[in-house]
């Protein structure tokens, strides 16, 4: 059952018809019962209607195409190398764009809440069309080698269909500035993302539950790896999955 906390982050993508059919149906069911989310959707519709004003699209000024036409012909000739018509010189664009992007990425809150927030965001994004898994298969022997070369550690991958957690696939994601493995399971109609990365210490830690914005996060450490399971299933289900990961036959 979707709650407002689950619906709100997805509502804009639902409005754009960019969610998969399963999520869309869940959101529609929630919208029938929740005035707050239904009016939030109406606001999106009103915003789109308002911005559909044609005069908000700026048309190129008269003469721009003609000036380009001339400039292109001049640039096509070899001496164009010495022709510098614009107010500022060319600079390495890729580098500056990257700098802007990393400045954007650097604006973040700190501490474990920040990690929880990133994990929940990643979980929410994974529910979008074509974003859940990079390698979609219930075969653990396909998922495991797929991670080779994409990340610098070997995450344990196993299929737990017999225990009610069928393996859906895997993907690589970025959490707290590093590439992490994500092993994806299904629990009834819900998705569970298990994020795995090296913990930097060999100390094992028993599972601990963290609640964040209506999601359950379960964190544990084992054999030098940190695990975070994230889902909207209940905490007990996540603990069952964590126990399966603790079993010795997993590698």
């Amino acid at each position: 059952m979707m709650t407002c906390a689950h619906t709100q982050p997805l509502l804009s993508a639902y409005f754009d018809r960019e969610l998969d059919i399963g999520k869309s149906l869940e959101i529609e069911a929630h919208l029938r019962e929740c005035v707050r989310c239904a009016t939030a959707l109406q606001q999106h519709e009103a915003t789109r209607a308002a911005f559909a004003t044609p005069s908000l699209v700026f048309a190129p000024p008269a003469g721009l195409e003609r000036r380009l036409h001339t400039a292109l012909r001049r640039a096509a000739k070899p001496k164009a190398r010495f022709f510098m018509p614009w107010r500022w010189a060319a600079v390495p664009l890729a580098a500056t764009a990257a700098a802007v992007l990393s400045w954007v990425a650097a604006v973040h809150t700190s501490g474990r809440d920040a990690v929880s927030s990133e994990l929940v965001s990643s979980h929410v994004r994974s529910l979008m069309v074509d974003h859940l898994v990079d390698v979609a298969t219930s075969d653990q022997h396909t998922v495991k080698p797929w991670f080779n070369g994409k990340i610098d550690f070997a995450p344990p991958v196993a299929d737990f269909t017999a225990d009610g957690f069928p393996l859906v696939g895997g993907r690589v994601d970025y959490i707290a500035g590093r590439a992490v493995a994500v092993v994806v399971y299904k629990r009834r109609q819900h998705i569970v993302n298990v994020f795995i990365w090296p913990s930097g210490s060999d100390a094992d830690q028993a599972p601990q539950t963290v609640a964040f914005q209506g999601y359950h996060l379960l964190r544990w450490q084992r054999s030098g790896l940190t695990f975070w399971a994230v889902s909207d299933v209940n905490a007990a289900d996540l603990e069952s999955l964590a126990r399966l990961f603790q079993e010795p036959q997993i590698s």
Partner: protein
Amino acid sequence: MQESEDVQRFERIVMPHLGAGYNLARWLTRNDHDANDVVQEAYLRAFRSFDRYRGGDARAWVLTIVRNTCYTWLRQQRATESAHTTDNVDDGVAEIPADPATEPEVQFIRNADRQLLREALEALPPEFREAFVLRELEGLSYKEIADVANIPLGTVMSRLARARSHLQHALLRRMKEGAG
């Protein structure tokens, strides 16, 4: 003068997207003069790297170059203006509104005049503004926006959600101040 085949091919494939390129540049630079310069620079840049265009979506290809040229310009603006804004542009999930919007509020947004809409959109941080312009004014899909802005699909989703939320808050703030 013999026109080069390259120029003709470039004009046939890339020039039809001049409108989209200019609109994006105009919204990112927020003035006609700089939009003009940026688009000319971007189109020359596109022409020089046209041998790397491998077919496919020419609009997304040239919008990427226009966008990158705009960001170079924006970065230079930030360097010259002593204090740049530190808008919170984190990509976290959207907040849950405290109260549902009322019917008059929804109507106010729907009927907001051009000036109000323009000010609200121009006030957004550029990362949100470009996502909104590409989606609502140019009709790009999330996948196309991800390609143009070189960001993951999930970031497109969160930026659009936040862009909409910021815009709606800004418009409703004006409503309470008695605009319109």
